[in-house]
C-alpha cells in the first residue's frame, strides 16, 4: 500500500485538476462570449454650442429645432413660453427634408439631409451634402459636398448624422450610402470645417447617429448602428478616431435602431430609437420614437436599459 500511495495521490490530483479544468462550465463559456468593452466613467459636459445670432437678434433665446418634416419642410424653430410660435422661411425648404443637426461655438447650424417619403431625381444629389445655416444671417446653404457619397434606388440614404466636436473644432458626419442587405459600407468622416477637408474616415460602419462622449481620461465617439439595435463606441486616439468599433450594449427591441444619443448625467444616456430598414422613412416625429435610459456601471462594465415612465 505504501508503495502505491504516491501513484494514487498523483492520480487523484490529476483527476481533480482535470475535472475542474475540463468540465463544461457555462460560467466559463459565458465569460468567453460576453466580453464587454470597459468604458471609462463619463458625464455630461457643457456644450460649446451657441444660439444662432440671427435667432438671438429676433428675441428667440431658447428655440426647439424641428426637423420632423411633419408640418414644415426643411427646418423650423419653435419658441415662446409654450413653444407655440414658429419661425419658418420658404427658402429653408430648398434642400428638401433635413434629418439631424449640430451647432458650433459660433452658432452656425450644420445639418444632414434625409430622404423623406417620396424620391425625386434630385433626392440622391441632396443626400451627398452637409448644409449650413449661417449664425448671423440665417441663410441656409449647401456647405460641403462629399462626392464619394452615392445613394441609389436600393439605398436612398447618404449623409445621415453629424456632430460638432467642441474640443477640436471638427465636424464628424456619418453616411450609410451603398450599404446593402449583405454588406455594411457606411463611412464616418472627420472634417476640418475651416478647410472643408476630410482628415480621417472610418469605413465599414453604418452609423445612424453619432455623438461625443467625454470620459475620465478618454474621449469616445458614440454611435447607434443602422444595422442592429446596438450602441457602439470608437475611441479617440489623440485627435483621430480609432477605427475599431466596440459594442457597448443593445436596446431591448431588436427591431429598433438608435437614432439619437444624449448624455443626460453621470454614466447615463438617453436613447431614442426608431424602426429603420433602409427604405423611405415616414416616421420622424417624437410619437414614433422609442425612448430608453441606459445606465452604466463602471465597477463591472455593465449596462442597464430601462424605459422611462411616461
Amino acid at each position, binding site marked *: 500500500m505504501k508503495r502505491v500511495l*504516491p501513484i494514487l495521490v*498523483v492520480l487523484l490530483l490529476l483527476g481533480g485538476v482535470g475535472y475542474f479544468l475540463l468540465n463544461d462550465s457555462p460560467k466559463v463559456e459565458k465569460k468567453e462570449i460576453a466580453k464587454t468593452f470597459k468604458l471609462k466613467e463619463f458625464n455630461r459636459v457643457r456644450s460649446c454650442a451657441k444660439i444662432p445670432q440671427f435667432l438671438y437678434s429676433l428675441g428667440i433665446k431658447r428655440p426647439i429645432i424641428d426637423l420632423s*418634416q411633419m408640418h414644415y419642410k426643411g427646418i423650423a424653430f419653435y419658441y415662446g413660453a409654450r413653444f407655440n410660435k414658429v419661425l419658418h422661411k*420658404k427658402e429653408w425648404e430648398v434642400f428638401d427634408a433635413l434629418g439631424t443637426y449640430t451647432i458650433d461655438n459660433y452658432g452656425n447650424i450644420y445639418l444632414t439631409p434625409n430622404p423623406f417619403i417620396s*424620391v425625386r*431625381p434630385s433626392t440622391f444629389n441632396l443626400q451627398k451634402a452637409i448644409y449650413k445655416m449661417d449664425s448671423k444671417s440665417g441663410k441656409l446653404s449647401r456647405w460641403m459636398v462629399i462626392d464619394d457619397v452615392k445613394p441609389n434606388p436600393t439605398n436612398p440614404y447618404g449623409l445621415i448624422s453629424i456632430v460638432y466636436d467642441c474640443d477640436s473644432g471638427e465636424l464628424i458626419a456619418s453616411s450609410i450610402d451603398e450599404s446593402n442587405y449583405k454588406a455594411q459600407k457606411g463611412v464616418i468622416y472627420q472634417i476640418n470645417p475651416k478647410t472643408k477637408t476630410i482628415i480621417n474616415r472610418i469605413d465599414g460602419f453604418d452609423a445612424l447617429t453619432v455623438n461625443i462622449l467625454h470620459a475620465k481620461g478618454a474621449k469616445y465617439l458614440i454611435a447607434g448602428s443602422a444595422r442592429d439595435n446596438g450602441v457602439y463606441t470608437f475611441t479617440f486616439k489623440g485627435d483621430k478616431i480609432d477605427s475599431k468599433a466596440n459594442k457597448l450594449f443593445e436596446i431591448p427591441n431588436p427591431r429598433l435602431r438608435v437614432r439619437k444619443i444624449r448624455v443626460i448625467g453621470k454614466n447615463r444616456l438617453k436613447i431614442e430609437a426608431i424602426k429603420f430598414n433602409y427604405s423611405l422613412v415616414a416616421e420622424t416625429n417624437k410619437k414614433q420614437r422609442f425612448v430608453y435610459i441606459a445606465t452604466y456601471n463602471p465597477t463591472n462594465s455593465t449596462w442597464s436599459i430601462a424605459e422611462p415612465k411616461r
Partner: protein
Amino acid sequence: MKNEYKIALALLIIGGLAIGGLYYKKSHKSVKVATVNKNLDSSDKKVIMPDTDEQSAAKIPAVEEYLADLKKLYEKGKSTLPLQKSELDNNGVVAQNVALKSKEFLSDTKMDNKLLHNDIMRVMPAISATLDDKSKKECKSSVCYVVEKYNYALNSTTRAIVDVKAKRVVSVKRYANSQPDISARLTNIAKEIALNNPKVIKELGHTPTPSEISMANVRSNLEQSPCEDKNHLCVAPTFADHKKERALWAIVDLTDLKLAIAKWAGLGKTYTPACIDERTLENRYIMKNFCQKDTNLTKFGWSMKYHLTGSDGLEIRDIKYKGKSVARSLKIVDWHVAYKGLGADKLDTTEPVMMAGHRVEFIKGVNNEYTFGYNDAMGCPMFSTSVVLAFNGPQIKEIKDKNGKVTGFYIVQDFRNPKWPMACNYRYENKFIFNKDGSFRVVAINMGRGCSDKAIYRPVMRLDIKLSDNKERFALYNGKDWDDWQIEQGYRSTGKEKMLDDKYLYKVFSPEDANEGYYIEPNRGQFHDNSRGDNEDVYVTKYKEDEGNEDLLTLGSCCKLDYDGPEEYTKDKELIENTDTVIWYVPTIQNDDKAGEEYCWADSIIDKNGNPSVRVWPCIVGPKFVPISN
C-alpha cells in the same frame, strides 16, 4: 529515487501535459463556439413561410371542434366561448357562470348587432395583485375569482372579479389593445396547428409529437403580438433540436387559426425573443429569397426568371416560350393615385401635406377643380424606395378551366401598406398569367381602400417584348386594317374602337416574319373578373437601357390626368420601325364605394365567426398577348 516515486513523477508530468493540452484545446473551442454562436449560419436563421393554401387549419380535429362550438354558440345568439369544465374547479364553474350573466362583462360582445368573437381565457382564484381597494374589501371576507376574456374583434381583454359566495360580479375592467394569457384549450389548438403543418414537418424531418413542443412562457414575455397584424392573438411555440443546438419557433395566429411563419433560432432562449416577429421574419425571407437574387422558373413550355425590385414591383425577365424569346422584361413600375377635389382657388399648398405616409402632390385644374395624390412604388421591404411593400413572397398557382383542366399558371405578388385596409392605405397585386397555348397576360390588381371615392388609379406597365431577332414593329387597328407606328408616340383608347375579331386593338410583331409576334387584347371586361375595362393609354418607345430597364424611381405625375409619364420617353419621336422597342400600357381606373357597386374598394368587417376580417372588391386591369400564329 524509489521506483514508485519515479512512476508517480512520470504520471504527473504526462498527466499534466495531457490535461494542459486538452484545456488549451477546449478554451480555443469555446472561443470558436462563441464566434459561431454570435454569427449563426444561414440554416440556423432560416425562415419558413407556409404556403397560402396550407394555412387553413380547419381539418385538425381540435380546431374543427373549436369552430363547431363557436357555431353552436352563435346559433344561440351568444359569442363568448366559455372554458371547458376540465379547465375549471367547482368555484371556477360558479364564477364563470356569474360572469357570463353580467351585462357589464359582456357589454363589448356585440357591435351594430353583430356578434363579436370572445373567449374566456382564465378563471382562477383572485390574488391580491389583481384586486383594487374596493374589491379587496369585499373579497377579504369571501371567496373571489378572476374571470378573464379576450375580444378578438376589438383586441381587448376584460377582467371580472366575481364573489363566488355571493354569486355577483364585484368589478369589471377592460383593457384596450391588450392580450391575456391563453386558455389550455387554445394552447392545445396552437400546438396542433404547429404539429400538423406540412412545412414544419418537413423542416423537422419527421412528424413531431406533442412532447417535442414547448409552450413555456409563450405569452408572458411578449410585449406585443408577434404577428404582422398586432391585433391578432398569436403565440410562438417551439420545437427544440438539442443535437443541433437550435429551436424552431412557430408563430401561430389564433385569430386566423393558422401558422403565420416559422424560424430557426439558437437554443437557450427561455422566452420568445422579440426577433420572432412575423413582419421581421417575412422581411428577411423576402429579402434573402426574392430581392437578392433571381429565381428561375420553367413550366408548361415557359421559362423565365423573376425577382422583386426596389421600386418596380415584381419583375419577370428573359421570358421564353418553347425556346423562343418572348420578352426581356415585364413589370408594373408605378401606381399613380389621384383624387378630385373642388376649391382650387382657395387651395393653400405652401405647407407640405402628408396622408398616411405619402407626401401629397396638388395640381390645380380648371373650373375651380384640382387633383391631389401621390405615386406609389411597390417593392422590397428593405433597402428600397417603395412605400407599398412586398407581403409574403411570389406565389405560383395553376389555372384550371371550368372542367378542371389545367390551362396554365400564374405568378402573383402581394404588396401592402402596413395599415391596409385603413383609409389611405393600399394593397396591390402584380399578376402574370402564362397559358399553355403560348398566350400571356400582365395584370395589375388594386384592392383598395384608398382615401375616398373619386379616386383615379393608373398603373404604369412597362412591357419590353423581345422577339427572336430583337426587332419589333407595332401597329394599331383602325377598324379595317393595321396602321404601323413608325416613330415613338402614344395613343389614348376610347374603349369603343372596332377591334380585329372584336378582341385585338394592337399588335407587336417581327419585321422578318409577320406571324411571329402577338395580338394585344385590351381588357374590356371580357376576362370574367368583374373588371370595368382598361381605358388605356399606350406608348411605344425605342429601347434604351436608362429608360426603365433598371428600377425607375417614379415616372410622371400622380395627378396630371393627361400625362402618364412615358411621354417623357417619346419626346424625341425616334424611329421605332424594325428596332428594339418597349410598350408602355397605362390603364385608368375609377373607384367606386357605392353600396352594392363597390370597385377598387375594401372594408373592415366582422365575419360570420365574429372575427375581424376584410371584404375586398378588387379592380383588375391589364392586356393579354395572344400569339399571332394561334
